[in-house]
């Protein structure tokens, strides 16, 4: 039974990574930039939800909604102020700006909310379901996490495949200039992508802190890096790839922590990533882009 427990825990953690990775992968697919501030938007979402629930005594669902609204707005503002002026700039300049935004969010959070650890109240309560006559306990937060991940995945796939905005996104990710010639508002499409990515980050932040309740201004950075790894693992730019990468990463992390060594679990996760990239340099579900001379 312990195997099943670990597997469920891994899938749950992996679902959170997958939600974050979806945000990474969408932004990368369209803006071709590594948004290092994405992890810190998770942290902002978690703080907003925390204060909504604990200081204003709002019901948890309203707290989640507040976090989504705040992060969406934040994402749009960041894109407008910091990233849009750099659309034509070399990618390293954009990367450093993203790092600057990440530092800014972390330090602003430290000033606003202090660096003391906050105990995040689980939005789903601490109930759990017992299966197989009490041999297997599944916390409700796990079930909620996995279901949210699946719902987000289905909705996003529908959105990018069927809606006009989704089509515009795919067009922009393929060729921005051609998309502009076809009458697509590229700037608006990118802004919408950032908004969606940031909203997902808010959801991920709430779910992450419901399962692992310590909240500090740097809460988002390690999950952010891991989710970025997951996105690359699955093939960056691919939505199913982000899901697959995220869940695999979560499962590997929990299993290596349980069966090999807790201290080395991060090292094992990254080692698997390296091996996968050596065999499949574009990630598990990434598209091979042939180089033209």
């Amino acid at each position: 039974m312990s195997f099943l427990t670990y597997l469920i825990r891994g899938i749950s953690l992996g679902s959170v990574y997958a939600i974050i990775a979806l945000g990474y992968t969408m932004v990368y697919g369209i803006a071709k930039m590594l948004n290092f501030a994405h992890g810190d938007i998770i942290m902002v979402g978690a703080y907003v939800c925390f204060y909504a629930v604990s200081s204003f005594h709002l019901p948890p669902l309203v707290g989640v909604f507040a976090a989504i609204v705040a992060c969406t707005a934040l994402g749009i503002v960041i894109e407008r102020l910091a990233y849009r002026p750099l659309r034509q700039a070399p990618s390293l300049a954009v990367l450093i700006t993203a790092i600057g935004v990440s530092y800014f969010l972390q330090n602003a959070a430290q000033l606003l909310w202090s660096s003391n650890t906050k105990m995040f109240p689980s939005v789903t309560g601490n109930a759990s379901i017992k299966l197989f006559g009490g041999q297997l306990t599944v916390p409700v937060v796990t079930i909620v996490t996995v279901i949210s991940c699946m719902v987000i995945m289905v909705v996003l796939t529908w959105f990018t495949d069927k809606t006009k905005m989704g089509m515009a996104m795919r067009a922009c990710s393929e060729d921005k200039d051609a998309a502009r010639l076809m009458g697509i508002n590229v700037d608006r499409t990118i802004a919408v992508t950032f908004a969606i990515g940031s909203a997902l980050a808010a959801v991920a932040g709430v779910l992450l802190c419901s399962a692992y309740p310590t909240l500090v201004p740097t809460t988002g950075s390690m999950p952010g890096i891991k989710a970025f790894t997951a996105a690359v693992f699955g093939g960056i730019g691919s939505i199913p790839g982000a899901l697959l990468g995220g869940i695999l990463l979560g499962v590997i992390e929990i299993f290596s922590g349980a069966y090999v060594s807790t201290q080395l679990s991060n090292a094992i996760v990254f080692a698997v990533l390296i091996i996968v990239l050596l065999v499949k340099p574009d990630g598990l579900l990434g598209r091979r882009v042939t180089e033209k001379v």
Partner: protein
Amino acid sequence: MTVKTKRLTRIKKKNLVPYAVVIAAYAAVEALGALGKTSSSLRGLLVPVCAYVVMALSLNLTVGILGELSLGHAGFMSVGAFTGVVAAVALEKAVPSAGIRLLLSMGVGTACAALAGLVVGIPVLRLNGDYLAIVTLAFGEIIKSIINNLYVGVDGGGLHVNLLGGADALNLSADGTTIINGPMGISDIPELSTFTAGFILILVTLFIILNLVDSRGGRAIMAQRDNRIAAESVGINVTKYKLMGFVLSAAIAGAAGTLFAMNFTTVVANKFDFNTSILILVFVVLGGLGNMTGSIVAAAALTVLPEVLRKFSTYRMLVYAVVLILVMLAENNPRFKLFFARLFHGKAAEGKEAAENG
């Protein structure tokens, strides 16, 4: 013929600038020190500044000259720091002279970091662009995790090494000492690093990198950076030259790591994490890709700046972040660029354009 000589003098003049900057800075600091004008907090910063300058030069070799983004450069610094200190402690009895011991341990740190660079470089350099960046990040994290769980001790029988087992599993004899104690890192480091040693290391690094850039190998490295396919088609062994640049860069980072670690009494593996790699990348990008003088100035200024801003302690990192974003926005603002191009009469604009194409 005239064109040729003109070009030669220009390269020479360009190369003199970074040396001059370093020597002038060293002389100024030493002079101020002799007059007793340096505060103790500044003196404490001198060796870390040197180490960060060397790190910035080393990363500039990877990012600016080789053209590959590395997000795990602190990992090599870490390897150099830990192996260097182990060597220094192990050689304590055999080599009494501090200077020679520093040199030897720096050699060990450099060699081990070069080896790590080779191990990392062979798989990493097969990838391109952002994938390469994420793999270097992954290697940086792996190195950090391993050193965090590494236990090394020394006794009469030589070095004892153990991974994960804890300090007790080293089976040291009674006179033995634990050097690396897992997550607690190394304590009681012999403080061998001096400002002069750092200064010499910067000069040596500059000499190596500037001469590499002007050599046949350096031209091959830059050719593959500008256009890999074109470089391959004229018969350049791209993998070989990439690996050469990368291993050299890792080796220099190792030397910087040894210098850095031997300035403190304790050092832990978590000091050399992703944030440190990013910090050094910021030096390189702000200083200008491929611009060694820029790297030196940016590394020194940005290491000293947070200390100077300490009185605004609560806001200093916020200010740092805002400055970083604003500089990036200004640097890439067409109107600003035009303004500076006019200011320096086209000559600087030309150089800027060349740097950007690279």
